[in-house]
Each structure stands twice: as structure tokens, then as C-alpha cells.
């Protein structure tokens, strides 16, 4: 049996930062990831990380206020204060670890502007910020000697007496199931973007941690808050960073008009993401688009800026559209991108299940509320990752180890055998996944209405029934990716159901949740978080007040 004080599930930014913190606190730490750490989806973050550095004349309170406003007042203000107050330290720490942040002519860290913020406070590494951070944290992980279970897939949490005591995981290479026990488990499994089709998220982003926690009895929160990013490629959903607009790019409709003038006269293209996505969708819906898209025009930035600061997206445009950004505008449209919602945690990453912690996109602290500001998520992963690492190490120390029955493994073995034994006639994991992705993207997206959301809910229920009957062709043990997809689909269906439940329960429009049938924000009744609990008969909704410190809700204008 494998035993550790702290077991971190997920080796993206949040997971690695948590593991490093727990290790520093003296715990015996292991990190487990279904892919090699540097394959994690944090890689894909392009634009940057926010921080208000005081020695640059910036003020964390401004950052906090803009985050609150961006969240459409659904963010918890105590958590947001922690986030923005700790940001400067976090960015400097990353720099010291080795992240090659871009600099100004004075050799100090340079910034660019991002959406929803008046000031340039986004620190960046060209347009590969996530990759640069992820690889540097991985370097630190190698240095630390933390145990790494690489390409191990967590299939379930070990729950005893209402406490989380470890995980059962599948070593993908051998197909062996193993029990790993630890008094504290940190879930840092990232988002759940693949529930949607298309999505900017990688194929591995399947909401595993959310589903695991949900099943273990921890509530999910604000699951209806699904962010659509304003600039994604139509054909495969790949993201074009907000930095393109931060550097000065324009959005044009089919008539060549900079339409954001109309919707956000002061901040234009750099209004909050929900605002920009809705504006684009309106242009498209009202017939001023181009083949279901609008245009992103960067030509005026010049080759130099494009090739140094936006090199990766230029590569993407060349690879997938055959267009150089310096030469022509590219068609883009809103696409599913990020989960504001997730496993409900306190500001130390603790979920409501003892021994179970969460951080990163999988968690909901909540700092993003109903709409996340660009470049606040990377910040979230390192700030709250570290806090979860600290807290879990302290918890583990206090509780100590308990013996856990090997029966958990036998149960999982039986379950997996069951999946492999099911028939593959007619139906398939891929078909169910595609139907799920489409129904979610059609109905719980930029604009929503009751009927559509109901349709999504019933479809997901039907798909769950089909899922329970479908098997996989591959019966082998070694690197059985067919089996992994099947398990991931199970997770996604559970999470999709909570998204639909949250969306139907929130009878107002707020942030990313824009209902055409209820277009107004309703602070009197819905300035509160939706908690989703699992019950035998399906998701149950409960409400939780929003924590407010200094900022009262106001009308949101950009």
C-alpha cells in the first residue's frame, strides 16, 4: 500500500504549487496526474497573470474592485481580497523560480492590458505564459524530490466515516489499480471544458475532480457560470488569447465596423469577457457576422509586435487557417472556455468533506463569481494552490494516518470489469460524448432560456442511461485509452447535470448566465451562490449568501 501525508491529485499549476507548499511545510507529499505534468492544460494559458505591484504605483484594491465588478458581484469579497493582496508576492516568487517574464526597457517586469481592467497589470511571457509557468513549476517539482505518480488515473476517492482517506488509482501503463492513502487529499484536476463541443480546453479536461468530490458528498458551487471566451477558432475551438486585444486588436463585424463601440463605449474590446461574447453573439445573430463569426483584426499592430508578443497565436493562425495575423483579419467566435464554478472551498482550499481539499479551476473559492477576468485564473491557481498545500499539510499532521481496507481496490476492480464487459453494439462513448457536447453548447452557452436548459437537462439524463449500458472495444490492460475515455465520460455526465441544475435554478441574468427570458440581474433574490449536492434522485440545490466586505453591487457598465 502506498502512503503519504498529502496526496495532490493533478499536476497543473494549482497541483504543483500545492505540492511544493505542502512539502515545504514538512509533509511527505506525492502528486498524481493522469498525464505527465507538463502536458497539463495549464500549458494552454497564453495571455498572462494579473497582479497589482505597489512598487509600480498600482493598488491591490483596484484589482480587487475590478475583479468584484467582473464577477457581477457574485465573487466572495474576502477571497478576492486575498487573491489580489497576495498577487504581487506570487508573481515575484514565480520570477525567482525562473519564469522568463517579459520585461520593460528598464529590465523590470513588463505588463500588458487585459479585459475588464483599467490598468495594465498583466504579467506575461510572450503568449505562452501558462507553458512558461508550468514548465518552471515542474522544474521546481523535480528539484524538490516530491514523489510523482505520472500517468496514473484516479478512479475514486476513498471515503470512510465521512472522511477522505486517499484514492484508488489506475496505473495507465500497466492497467493496475492501486490504493494510495493519505489523511489529506488535494484535488487540483482542472476544469471540465470537454463537456462542451467545441471548447478551448484540451481533451483531458474532463471535470474528474469535480465529479469525484460531488460523489463523495462535497457540494459544487455556481456550476451554471460557464465562461465563453470571445475569440476562439470556429473549426476546432482553439483559443486566440485576449492579449491580442490587450495589445490593441480590433473586433470587426461583417460590415467592417468596430461594433464594440456600441456595447461598451469606454472599454470597447477590453470590456469583461461575458460582455464581449454577448456583443459578438448579438452581431452574429442579427446577421452582421461572417459565416457565424466576427473578425479579429491585428494588422495595425505590425509584424514586430505580432512576431514577438503574439508568436504562438500567429503560429496557430498559420497552422489552422493559413492566415498570417499581420496580413489579414481572422474569423473568430465565442467558445466555451472556463468554469467559474467548481468544488466549494473556503479560503484555505478546504471542501466540506474533512480531509478533502481543492484548488485551481476545479475549485470555487469563489474569486471569479459569475465571470472571470482574463489572467485571474493563473493567479488563482498559484495563490490558492499554495494555501491548499499549507492547509492540507497542517491537517495531515494533526490527524495522522489510519489504516484503510484494501476492499476499496476490489470494488473498483469489479466496477471496471463491469465496464469492460458491457457491449459496444450500436452505441459508443464517442457518440454519447458528442451529443452531450452539442446539447450543452446549443443550450447552456452565451444566451440561455428555460426551454433550452430543460432540454439539455433531459438529454443529459437520457445520455446517462445510455452511458450505463455502453462498453469499450479494447479489453486490454496496457494503456487502455478506450477505458479512460469511458471513465472520463462518466465524470463529465455527472458534472453536466450539475451545470444544468444550477442554470435552471438561477432565475435571473448575471455574468456568464445570460437568460433571454429573464434579462435582468436580480440582487434581491439571487445575490447568492448556488450549491449543488448529489442525491439519489439527482442534484439538489441549496443557496449560500455572497460574502461582501467593501463593495456594494452596482450597475455594470464598461
Amino acid at each position, binding site marked *: 500500500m502506498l502512503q503519504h501525508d498529502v496526496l495532490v491529485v493533478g499536476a497543473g499549476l494549482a497541483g504543483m504549487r500545492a505540492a511544493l507548499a505542502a512539502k515545504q511545510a514538512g509533509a511527505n507529499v506525492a502528486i498524481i496526474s493522469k*498525464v*505527465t505534468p*507538463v*502536458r*497539463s*492544460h495549464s*500549458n*494552454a494559458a497564453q495571455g498572462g497573470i494579473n497582479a497589482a505591484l505597489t*512598487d509600480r504605483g498600482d493598488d491591490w484594491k483596484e484589482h480587487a474592485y475590478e475583479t468584484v465588478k467582473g464577477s457581477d458581484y457574485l465573487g466572495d469579497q474576502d477571497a478576492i481580497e486575498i487573491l489580489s493582496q497576495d498577487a504581487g508576492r506570487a508573481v*515575484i516568487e514565480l*520570477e*525567482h*523560480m*525562473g519564469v*522568463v*517574464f*517579459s*520585461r*520593460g526597457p*528598464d*529590465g*523590470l517586469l*513588463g505588463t500588458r492590458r487585459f479585459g475588464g481592467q483599467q490598468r495594465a497589470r498583466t504579467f506575461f*511571457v*510572450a503568449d*505562452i505564459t501558462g*507553458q*512558461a509557468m508550468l*514548465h518552471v513549476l515542474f*522544474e*521546481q517539482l*523535480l528539484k524538490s524530490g516530491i514523489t510523482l505518480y505520472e500517468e496514473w488515473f484516479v478512479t475514486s476517492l476513498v471515503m470512510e466515516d465521512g472522511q477522505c482517506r486517499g484514492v484508488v488509482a489506475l496505473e495507465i*501503463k500497466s492497467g493496475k489499480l492501486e490504493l494510495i492513502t493519505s489523511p489529506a487529499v488535494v484535488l487540483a484536476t482542472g476544469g471540465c471544458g470537454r463537456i462542451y463541443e467545441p471548447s478551448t480546453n*484540451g*481533451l*483531458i*479536461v474532463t471535470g474528474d475532480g469535480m465529479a469525484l468530490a460531488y460523489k463523495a458528498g462535497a457540494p459544487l458551487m455556481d456550476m451554471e457560470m460557464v465562461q465563453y471566451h470571445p475569440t476562439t477558432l470556429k473549426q*476546432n475551438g*482553439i*483559443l486566440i488569447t485576449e492579449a491580442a486585444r490587450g495589445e490593441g486588436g480590433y473586433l470587426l463585424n461583417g460590415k467592417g465596423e468596430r461594433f464594440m463601440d456600441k456595447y461598451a463605449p469606454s472599454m470597447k474590446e477590453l470590456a469583461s469577457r461575458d460582455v464581449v461574447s454577448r456583443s459578438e453573439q448579438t452581431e452574429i445573430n442579427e446577421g452582421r457576422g461572417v459565416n457565424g463569426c466576427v473578425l479579429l483584426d491585428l494588422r495595425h499592430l505590425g509584424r514586430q509586435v505580432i512576431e*514577438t508578443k503574439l508568436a*504562438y497565436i500567429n*503560429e*496557430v493562425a498559420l*497552422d*489552422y487557417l493559413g492566415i498570417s495575423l499581420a496580413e489579414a483579419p481572422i474569423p473568430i467566435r465565442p467558445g466555451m472556455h472556463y468554469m467559474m464554478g467548481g468544488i466549494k472551498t473556503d479560503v484555505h482550499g478546504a471542501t466540506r468533506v474533512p480531509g478533502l481539499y481543492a484548488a485551481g479551476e476545479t475549485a470555487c473559492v469563489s474569486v471569479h463569481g459569475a465571470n472571470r477576468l482574463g489572467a485571474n485564473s493563473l493567479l488563482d491557481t498559484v495563490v490558492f494552490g499554495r494555501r491548499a498545500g499549507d492547509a492540507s499539510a497542517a491537517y495531515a499532521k494533526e490527524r495522522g494516518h489510519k489504516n484503510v481496507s484494501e476492499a476499496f481496490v476490489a470494488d473498483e476492480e469489479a466496477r471496471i470489469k463491469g465496464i469492460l464487459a458491457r457491449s459496444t453494439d450500436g452505441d*459508443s*462513448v*464517442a457518440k454519447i460524448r458528442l451529443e452531450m457536447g452539442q446539447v450543452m453548447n446549443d443550450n447552456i452557452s452565451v444566451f440561455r432560456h428555460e426551454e433550452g436548459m430543460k432540454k439539455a437537462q433531459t438529454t443529459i439524463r437520457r445520455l446517462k442511461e445510455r452511458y450505463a449500458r455502453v462498453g*469499450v*472495444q*479494447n479489453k*486490454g*490492460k*496496457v*494503456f*487502455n*485509452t*478506450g477505458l479512460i*475515455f469511458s471513465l472520463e465520460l462518466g465524470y463529465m455526465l455527472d458534472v453536466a447535470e450539475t451545470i444544468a441544475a444550477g442554470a435552471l435554478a438561477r432565475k435571473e441574468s448575471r455574468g456568464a448566465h445570460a437568460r433571454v427570458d429573464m434579462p435582468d440581474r436580480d440582487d434581491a433574490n439571487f445575490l447568492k451562490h448556488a450549491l449543488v449536492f448529489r442525491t439519489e434522485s439527482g442534484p439538489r440545490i441549496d443557496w449560500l449568501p455572497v460574502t461582501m466586505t467593501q463593495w456594494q453591487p452596482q450597475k455594470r457598465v464598461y
Partner: protein
Amino acid sequence: MQITLRVKRYNPEAPEERRSWTQDYKVDVPEDSTVLDSLIQVREYVDDSLSLRCSCRGAICGSCAMRVNGHAALGCKSKVQKLLGKDNVIAVEPMGNQPVIKDLVVDMTVFWDKIRQVQPWLQPQGPEPEAEYVAPNEAMQHLVGVMGCIMCGACVSDCTVLEVDKNFIGPAALAKAYRFVADPRDGHAKDRLGLYNKAGGIWDCTRCFECVQVCPKGVAPMDRIMALRDQAIDAGFIGSYGARHAEAFASSVEHSGTVNEMSLVVNTFGMFNLPKLLGLLPLAIRAGYKRKMPPLFHKPVEGIAGVRRIFHKAEEQQKAARG
């Protein structure tokens, strides 16, 4: 568009004689598909037993390196249309130089061991500043080019030296090594260069350009290795045969405008390194007999004074550029 993916498969759980085989998958894919899109289509709708790694579909996670039509590439960066051979066939195999686990999935343990070998973390010297390190943006920009490496393994797959010498640290790890040597914040450049100067290190690369050609991110590992060589010599590591060969080569060109293989050999091994020189003797004797010996002394080219002037100016310019 109808295409055939000719996939080299491997299943370690099958009986010995049926473990590896080649399988043709005919699929109908949109014109702008990548090889990865097509493989995913196979995996989802034809045969889910086909194992491969992939995630981002945007050439950033480094999961999907494989050999496409004989050369290492990212599946998600390889457009089907550009690759179609006779009868619309595209050949897909796992990467080379790494053991296959199943189908297109290779074991990258050794890859990571070699990354570890170069001490891949920043080692600043002196006390940490309170704020950020002050560093020129150009230096950081330059590093971004190397940090662009996504650790996909394509360069390692096609490295010609790794094919015959497992001891070689290899292109990806050495590019990573360069990233620290070139980082103005790192305080251990010299120790690092000493480490990379050892056998299996920077001098073992044959400059074959395979890694430059296949790297999907423009990291150009070979160029980084060459930069490490130059810096190693600069830092005083001049004892290796590689360093001596490079110096002997340069002085031959400086002296005569051309290279003289005999003097290269003698200068590389040293006039009194009898074992090495004798080792080359069978060749020398046979070559002499065949009237193939290069002349021992060779005349400088016409206009050698000009060559030398250029030589010195370029050397000075480089020195000046480095400060």
C-alpha cells in the same frame, strides 16, 4: 476526403507472433484535418483499441509526437493534405529511440531521466532580491525561444547519435541545459558547462540537423548545443577532443583558408598522443598506399591575407557583441 492511415501497431499483451503489425484505416476526413484529427476519428468511431496520447490539439502540450511518413512530428500540427502519398496513404508510427508501450505510445522515462541529468532548475547565486531580478528584455526574449520547447520528444526520436549511443544526453535535454546557461539570473553557468562538457554531452552531437528539422516549436536544439560548445571553450573547457578539433579547424582556416585533415587529426589528438594517432594508422597506411593521403602541408589559398583580415574582424565583432 478519403485517406488511409497506415498505422504501425503494437500490443504487448498479444501472443508473441502477433504483437506488432501494420493496420490500414480508411477514413473520410475534412480537407483541413490534421493527422491527429484523423487518428481521433479512428479511435472514436472505428477502433478504440488504438492507443495514443493527445490533449491540446494546438501544438502546446507535447503529447502527440509520432513519426509521420518516416519523420517525427506532432500529429496535431501535421496537415493531412500536405502528407498524402501514393493512394492517399499516410504512414504513422510511434517515435523512435524510445521503447514502445502500446501502439503510438512510447515510454519516455529515459527522456525525463536525461532532462533531470542537466539539473533543470534555476540556481541563482547570492541572496534573493526583494523584487524581481533585473534582466534585459532581449535576454528574456531569447530564452522564450528555448522555453518554447514542449518536451514532445520529436528531436530525441530522430536524433542520429541517440540511435547508436544511448549515453548521449540528447537534443531536448541539452536545449534545456542551454536555457539555464543563457539565463542571466543563473549563477552556475561554469559548473553547468563543466557538467555538459563531459562524455555524452555537448561534443557528442554530429550536427546532423535532424532535431532542427523535426522540432515543431523552432527550438533548434542543435543550435543551442553549438552555443554551449562555444561557451564551454570560452569558459576554459578546452581539453576535450571536441574543443580541440574546433580550435584546430578554425586555426587551419585562418592559416590557409582551407582545412587540412592531417593537421586536424594531429592537433585534435596532440602530437604525442600515440595511442590515438596509431589508432588511425591502419587507415593512414592503407590510404598512403592508395595514393589517398591528404597532403601533409598545404598551400594557403590565393588572397589568404584577405581571409585572415575577415577572420580577425569577425572575431573582434563577436567579442565586442558579447561585451
